[in-house]
């Protein structure tokens, strides 16, 4: 009995170390994903992703930790979208309105760029947004994306193509080309 308890305790400690390792390795990456997926509170959502990963640690294959986490992140983001949608339907929450793009300044340029990016991403459908973020920002391969999203490679290719087209259209609308000189 005591031996079994010791074994459980040891396994618990090992799991805790494992999840700590995951957090140290992948926290920033998952946080960025949650941000670009449009999470209302990226830090909170990121914690949630790791909590779920902890619970499902036994399902995580060695060497595929990142894909495992991305899969959870995609589902958490989807759940948040659904929750937001429900709240809007019940008029509990006004629809998200992306803030106007602020004036440029050197100090804030990256933040502004991110705000513009988020504004454009918000116009993509969730499927296209996920594919675009994973491919263009996080630079996952189409094969990796297919794996984490659980869809065929052909579907990923199609989504990526449509996502890039939609992104381009939105980019041109929000930030028209200057034809010949950098903005």
């Amino acid at each position, binding site marked *: 009995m005591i031996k079994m308890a010791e074994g459980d305790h040891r396994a618990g400690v090992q799991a805790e170390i494992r999840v*700590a390792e995951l957090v140290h390795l992948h926290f920033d990456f998952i946080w960025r994903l949650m941000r670009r997926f449009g999470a209302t509170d990226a830090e909170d959502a990121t914690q949630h992703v790791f909590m779920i990963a902890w619970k499902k640690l036994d399902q995580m294959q060695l060497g595929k930790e990142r894909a495992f986490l991305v899969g959870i992140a995609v589902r958490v983001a989807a759940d948040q979208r659904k929750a937001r949608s429900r709240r809007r339907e019940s008029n509990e929450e006004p629809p998200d309105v992306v803030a106007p793009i602020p004036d440029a300044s050197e100090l804030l340029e990256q933040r502004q760029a991110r705000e513009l990016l988020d504004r454009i991403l918000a116009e993509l459908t969730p499927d296209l947004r996920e594919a675009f973020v994973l491919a263009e920002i*996080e630079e996952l391969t189409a094969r990796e994306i297919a794996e984490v999203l659980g869809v065929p490679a052909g579907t990923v290719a199609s989504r990526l193509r449509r996502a890039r087209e939609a992104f381009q259209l939105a980019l041109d609308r929000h930030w028209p080309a200057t034809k010949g000189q950098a903005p």
Partner: protein
Amino acid sequence: MKDDTPERKERLLVAARNDAPPQGARDRALLAMGVAASASLAGAEAAAAKLKTAALKSTAAAPASGASLLLKAVGLGTVAGALGMATILGLKGQGTPPAREREAPGSVVPSATPVQRPAASREAASIPSVIVSPTPATSHTAAMPASALSAPGGTPVPTLAEPSSRPPSAAAPAIEAERALIETARQSLAAGRASTAIKALNEYEARFGFGVLGHEQVALKVKALLTLGRRSEAAVVGEHYLAERPNGTQAATVRRLLAGAAPTPSSAPE
């Protein structure tokens, strides 16, 4: 004519790749999850070893290998972050049973909302006018003590974003002054000195009006007033903000503060 489309797109993508969580976010997550300091340290060591191996492989192999991507995604400072955790967590013993079940997100430790800062002016719908040069993502080389910014009901209160590692610019001094006042207020509030926090926030308002960090100023002020039991004043400040900026970056936080409710837990796939 030269098409600048790739440049425009790349500027946005680079900015997104350089995005980083607020300072101390990783440590707060470990703390909120109930990971013991000893486990965090051990995990950090394992992570550091993995990174080192990846770095060696990436040196030997192609530069765009998965290892280099991993390094890029992870950033540096893993061990330092873990050491910070040890400091935060103190003497929490090894093998402490983890908090297996999550309560409301952020209910254990207030999580900081990554701040989407408003710019100095929102008059014009202009675009970023300066080419964004790739800069390394902010690394968390030092852990920030977990702030004690917990509202009644555990509502998270915003904290400042990571200090910029970018070169200073002409706008930097004003921004830094704003940042310093907000940081003073935040730390004062965390230390239980709500009156001091309010002084700093009033000074901020007098100097900058609704400045670049105006959203954060309001949220902190509402929180500070509530801490002092000045609910009616908090309501005035908060309601005014919500009326003016119903979709402001801190609108949800202010609503939660005023409602005295805990943050809405997001449902998760099980």
